[in-house]
């Protein structure tokens, strides 16, 4: 059968809105208020599901209700290192207990439920992360076909071990796994697949996916209240595309935890170009890093849906970066001191939590909101062996001072070296405006648009006007 369609890059990208509309079944137009302004809460309310509905959907496929545990040995170690009166207690939400081994099951559960309900025969997701296995697992349970599209290899067919493992997991659930070489045209090929198959786009960024994560924040609020008698002082969230922080914060607030600080943490890979064939295998964390964290915060609608439901700047109170070497070290610490062998990527937020616990008061609490499964390809030993093969220097040293993304990975010599690099949230808010002004080719926004910006940036009108005038002056 030959297709009369033009499947060239330009032609498919020109059809993107139509393809996406058919593949998500959401008419995003109806939420547009004017210009750049759209009604986010209306979209979440009309398209998403309530917490109770999501909990029911997730219970059907064994998703959620994961344990929350105090890391008592690590907390004793922190108390030893902390100044008098400091050393907050860390609690860990063991999301690895979900069916495919990560919090991504929460997202996939609602998306795949929705796809089934709307009569789609299959689901497609473009992801090099744990989300692939989550969608494949949920599709298996609901009897739908599944295609996962991964960015997996460099041009020499050197595969990122972590992504190869995720591909294996998808195949274990019966999914077709399309493995591509480096490039943003992953999105082009996904659109082509959506058009050819008529399957549902189980986007990471739909209102369904984000509603699925709200139960995580909701459970944290309830479990912490039960364990400690109050809401946590801070929740630390590994930040990539912004969904985890958005969903967790929304769920927490819905459960009454409005005072809890929401802190994002990403692995520092600044300086490595995300679309570079050469830099691709110089990264030993494949998602929760600055290459996703910063661009998705400053322009959420770069995603595969017209309006991204993951809008991290609405919720993020603070943003910190950690180095690759300290995350591997903390992964070793979690295994050796707490008896929990979990994937390194999920421990990005735990690493930040240890550094922040030292500066917080001893009567305060921190929740690390995820863990993920581990195994071949994912383990620190697998990633560091690969890093050495790719010419990285792996050494013991100060992880913050000696780390150079793409060159040096420094494993701490002592837990007191675990630290963070502050990345001011206000810098990202200003970058958001700078990119917006560039895309729109204008720096004047009407009242509706200004109101939207205040919500989307969680900022006052005065702050926004100040940042805009600073951008003008550059």
């Amino acid at each position, binding site marked *: 059968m030959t297709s009369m369609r033009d499947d060239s890059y330009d032609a498919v990208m020109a059809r993107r809105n139509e393809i996406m509309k058919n593949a998500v079944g959401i008419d995003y137009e109806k939420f547009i208020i004017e210009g750049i302004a759209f009604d986010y809460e209306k979209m979440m309310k009309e398209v998403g599901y309530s917490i109770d509905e999501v909990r029911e959907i997730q219970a059907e496929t064994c998703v959620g209700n994961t344990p929350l545990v105090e890391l008592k040995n690590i907390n004793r170690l922190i108390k030893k290192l902390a100044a008098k009166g400091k050393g907050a207690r860390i609690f860990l939400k063991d999301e690895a207990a979900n069916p495919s081994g990560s919090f991504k099951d929460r997202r996939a559960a609602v998306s795949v439920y929705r796809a089934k309900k709307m009569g789609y025969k299959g689901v497609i997701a473009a992801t090099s992360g744990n989300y692939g296995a989550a969608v494949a697992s949920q599709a298996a349970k609901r009897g739908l076909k599944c295609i996962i599209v991964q960015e997996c290899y460099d041009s020499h067919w050197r595969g990122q071990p972590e992504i190869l493992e995720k591909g294996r997991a998808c195949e274990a659930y019966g999914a077709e796994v*399309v493995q591509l070489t480096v490039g943003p045209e992953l999105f082009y090929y996904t659109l082509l697949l959506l058009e050819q198959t008529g399957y549902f786009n189980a986007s990471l960024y739909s209102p369904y996916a984000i509603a699925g994560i709200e139960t995580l924040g909701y459970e944290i609020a309830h479990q912490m209240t039960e364990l400690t008698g109050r809401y946590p002082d801070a929740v630390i969230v590994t930040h990539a595309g912004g969904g985890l922080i958005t969903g967790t914060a929304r769920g927490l607030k819905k459960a009454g935890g409005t005072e809890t600080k929401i802190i994002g943490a990403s692995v520092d890979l600044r300086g490595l170009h995300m679309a570079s064939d050469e830099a691709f295998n110089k990264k030993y964390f494949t998602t929760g890093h600055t290459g996703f964290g910063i661009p998705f915060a400053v322009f959420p609608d770069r995603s595969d849906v017209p309006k991204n439901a993951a809008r991290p700047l609405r919720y993020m109170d603070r943003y910190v970066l950690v180095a690759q070497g300290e995350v591997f*070290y903390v992964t070793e610490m979690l295994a050796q001191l707490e008896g929990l062998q979990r994937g390194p990527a999920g421990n990005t937020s735990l690493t930040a939590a240890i550094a922040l616990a030292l500066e917080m008061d001893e009567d305060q609490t921190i929740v690390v909101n995820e863990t993920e499964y581990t195994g*071949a*390809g994912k383990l620190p030993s697998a990633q560091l*062996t690969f890093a050495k093969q790719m010419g990285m220097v792996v050494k013991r040293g100060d992880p913050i001072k000696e780390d150079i993304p793409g060159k040096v990975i420094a*494993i701490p010599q002592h837990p007191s070296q675990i630290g963070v690099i502050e990345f001011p949230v206000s810098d990202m808010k200003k970058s958001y405006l700078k990119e917006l002004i560039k895309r729109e080719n204008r720096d004047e926004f009407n009242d509706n648009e200004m109101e939207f910006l205040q919500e989307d940036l969680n900022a006052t009108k005065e702050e926004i006007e100040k940042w805009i005038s600073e951008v003008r002056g550059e």
Partner: protein
Amino acid sequence: MSTNLAKRGDWVQVQLNVLSPEERSPYLPEDTKKVPLQMRVKGFLVDEIASLGATVRIKTTTDRIISGILIDINPKYTHNFGEPVPELINAGVELRKLMEEIDRCDGPEGDGK
């Protein structure tokens, strides 16, 4: 892989070019611009018989028919647990020692606070 020949119904892997360098997105760094966008996918061989390197058709688990170069028959997973990493092994030992010291000071359950 014991043979270079695959027969109809065998589980195989193919490789193909999705976009040649000139067909790719205009927004790419220089190194990526020079190389094609390629893909690998697995499925069941549709052709009667084929040898490695031949252009074949496969049927994927979603029943898509894809044409590409046969690169593997019964492809195995090659990612692994990696080699022992001395830097980490030592870190683990040190952390356990630190905890033993804390135990000696506070007692094994700590001071319960």
